[in-house]
Every structure is written in C-alpha cells, then in structure tokens.
C-alpha cells in the first residue's frame, strides 16, 4: 500500500513540475496535454493495480500486474527513444540543407 502512495506522490510531483513549466511558457499546450495524460494514466494504473492483477490472470498470464506495467513502460520508453532519434536525424538533415544552400549562394 505504502509503495502505491510513494508512487502517487512522485507522479504528483511530476504533474506539479509540469504545471510550473506550462505557467512559465517553457512547454507548449500540446506538450503539456500529452504529459498530463501520460502521468494521469500512470496514476490510474497504480490506483487500479488489483484490477490489472485480475486482468493479467484473465488473460492467462502468470505474475503480478505490476510486472506487466513495467514491461509496457519499457516498451513505451524504447518507442519514444526511437521516435526522438528519428526526429534528430530529420533535424540534422535540415541543418545540412540550410548549410549547403548558404554555402552555394556565397
């Protein structure tokens, strides 16, 4: 039980930081919405751990629901890392295009 409380406190801390960043206009409205939804889902998952446990059993899987939450979290992290990498590659390509255009104009 106390682990869930600690996890919820951490999530509340992140949401509080998110609100501050939004207030200081450091993140866009879309970014704020995305992360708010993300942390809200995480909080709901923690509150509904017993339900997830039941769901895991119904799906015929063994182990606690929290384990599967962690697996999903790792998968999401890998996907986000991959997306970030792709974005960096695209930005690099744009920088090259700009550098080249400027060099050839000189």
């Amino acid at each position, binding site marked *: 039980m106390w682990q869930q409380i600690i996890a919820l406190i951490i999530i509340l801390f992140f949401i509080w930081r998110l609100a501050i960043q939004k207030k200081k206009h450091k993140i866009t409205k879309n970014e704020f919405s995305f992360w708010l939804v993300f942390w809200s889902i995480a909080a709901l998952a923690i509150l509904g751990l017993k339900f997830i446990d039941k769901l895991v059993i119904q799906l015929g899987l063994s182990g606690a629901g929290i384990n599967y939450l962690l697996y999903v979290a790792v998968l999401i992290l890998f996907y986000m890392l991959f997306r970030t990498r792709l974005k960096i*590659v695209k930005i690099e390509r744009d920088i*090259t295009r700009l*550098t*080249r255009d400027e060099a050839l104009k000189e």
Partner: protein
Amino acid sequence: MANIAIIIPALNESRSIFPVVSEVKPLATWVIVVNDGSTDNTQELAQKAGALVINHKTNRGQGAALETGDRKAKELGADIIVHFDADGQFLATDIRKVCQPIIDNQADIVFGSRFLSSSNELPWLKKNIIMPIAKIVSRLFWDIRLSDPQSGFRAFNKKVADKLVIENDGMAHCSEIIIFAHKNKYRIKEVPITVIYHRFGQNLGGGLRIIKDLIYKNIIQ
C-alpha cells in the same frame, strides 16, 4: 575534351590541402574544395593553391560536403565528377586511371579499389577484419560484389551525376553511392588505386555507424 571536376571535402586539412590541390589541378578543369567547417586555415590554403572553395559554416560530414561539391560541379557543367580525399592518401596520377573508362565510354561510374593493387599496405585490422565484414554485409543485404565496398575514390559521368543525390551526411555515403549505382544498373568498373595510409580511417565503431546510418536513411524515406 571532357570537363573534369574534382571534389575534395576538407576538414582541418591545412597540412595536406595545398600539395593535394596543386597536384590534382593540372588534371582537371575545376578543383572544388568543400571546406566542411574547418577551424584552421584550410580555406586560405586551398584558395592559394587555385581551388574553388565552398564553405560549410558548420561541419556536416563528408557525405554532405561531397553532395555540395557535386551540385557546384553540375552547375559549372562538369562532364566527369571525381571524388578525392584531402589528406593526401590518394595519388593524383590515379585520377587518369579512374576517369579513363568513362572517357572511353566503357563505364558510367568507376570505383578505385585498394584491394586490386598489390602495392597497398593496409593496416592489418582493416584488411583482415573490417573490410571482410563490410564485403559480407554488402553481399548479404544488397548483393554487391565489389572488391572495395568502402572506396572513397570514384568518378562518374553526367548521367550518374544528374540522378545522384547523396543523402547520408556521414561516411555511409560510400555504400549509398555503390547501392545507388547497382540499383540504377549503371555500368560499373573497378580500377586498382594506390593508397598511402597516414591515418587509420574508419574503425570497427565507424563501420557499425555506417550500417546504422543506412538503416535510419531507409526508415526516414
């Protein structure tokens, strides 16, 4: 007579750029040095040696510099474009060898091969580990059977230049150009070239980076 443009990408090559440009200049109509964000006096020395210098304000990599040079060469109306290194590892006299099959209309693109010449003393690791791996990867993924899949010394005609757009900014451009030539069924030829190693060049990590860059390029497309 064919108009030849030699493209030399250069990053902090103040020690070698002057003699390299001076040696290749009599063999070409234009020598284009793409100064890829150098912080030394590469630009001044290349200009002093008689090259046409294009400046990248920031370092973008060898592939990006070659693409910039190719565009300038096409704008000038080059019939043959030659890619050459700035560090003095290639011999200027090999430029004729690389261009001749194109002039004789026997090939559209010619790659200089370090492995067809017995006089080259390649570093052991490169000769026995890195290059065999590169060859296997090239054969396995793209069915390419060249003796030197990472050759940076090449020449191609206008037909190839008009279609070629180098998209890999880094060192993966070598593989990219070879794959492009095979896909478009150009007449490909390899000629032996001499290489004098001053530096090791691509290591195993660099090789893995090339594979990673090629994969990302395909994903982004």
